């Protein structure tokens, strides 16, 4: 049985199986935002995803940004919201804003 909020087990399992893993974490939110601070999305270079940092609105954009983190290990701070042109494209329909920390595991 899987605790749907505990992404660390998934991150460890994927890393142990040889995947290149990145972890995205909600570090701040403004206005209505579907996922609280601390919520996590775990991604692999091979395209697997578990968890979430929004209601499904920005995960694809985080996955795009993760290409750089996979490649050079760079930690990134990503901002999404209605004032952000790119986030508008990916559709943060709730009108909130959020900041996501994206880091490589290992």
């Amino acid at each position, binding site marked *: 049985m899987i605790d749907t909020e505990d992404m660390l087990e998934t991150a460890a399992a994927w890393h142990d199986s040889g995947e290149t893993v990145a972890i995205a*974490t909600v570090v701040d939110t403004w206005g209505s935002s579907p996922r609280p601070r601390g919520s996590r999305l775990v991604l692999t270079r091979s395209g697997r995803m578990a968890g979430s940092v929004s209601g499904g609105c920005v995960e694809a954009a985080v996955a795009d940004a993760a290409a750089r983190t996979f490649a050079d290990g760079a930690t990134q701070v990503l901002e999404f919201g209605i004032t952000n042109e790119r986030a508008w494209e990916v559709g943060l329909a709730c009108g909130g804003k959020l900041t996501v*920390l994206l880091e490589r595991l290992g």
Partner: protein
Amino acid sequence: MTPETLAALRAARAARRVEVLATRLPDGAQLRLPDAAAPAALQAEAARAAARDESRIMDCDGESWFLHVHAPPPRLFIVGAVHVAQALAPMAATAGFAVTIIDPRRGYATAERFPEVTIEPRWPDEALRALAPDAHTAVVTLTHDSKLDDPALDLALRTDAFYVGALGSRKTQAARLERLAALGHGADAIARIHGPVGLPIGAVTVAEIAVSILAQLIAVRRNGRALPSATGGVVRSTHSRDGVPPEACPMSQDQGRLA
């Protein structure tokens, strides 16, 4: 995040220890707190965040840090490895509870009936004494057998468990409360028992009863003991149409059924 940090966070969770992962923004440097070597301001803020179980960004000496509280999961002790427990255990685990099934009856408490669930085969009072429910623990009795339910409730009421629930009809509940009063529990203690257990959603099937119990557990954990009803009033857990039909005992036939 280093694999070592990940391993330490997982170990803390398994050991039921609160840890705060402090990440400096934007470079991603990380510290695990408590750590005596960390800046005092960071330590103090981390302790406050941990106490509130609230992750947040703070400024420390001109640096921005994200304090991510990693709290162990709340616990749910289910007394009675019955049919409702088979539905409730996996649902509660999905919702983030660390579930333990307590039942000394070996025919009920089997790994086949409860895959991936911790099974505690001691008598409920002995088991609960050892497991020591705290303010992040819920106890739900489902056996319908006063020899098993009563000692569990007696012990649960002597702890800080945030939720105590007992399956059974209103009639069963009234008799149960009298027995607990005879054991020395006052009105305030007895009022802590949610029984008949569950939110009044008209639950009929085992899975529906499990949903009503889990929903009530979450409501109490997140909102406190009383809940606003759909009509704007306040529904107490002793509401006459709780999750289990008041005069029926839908589980009575399941007591002898093992699958």
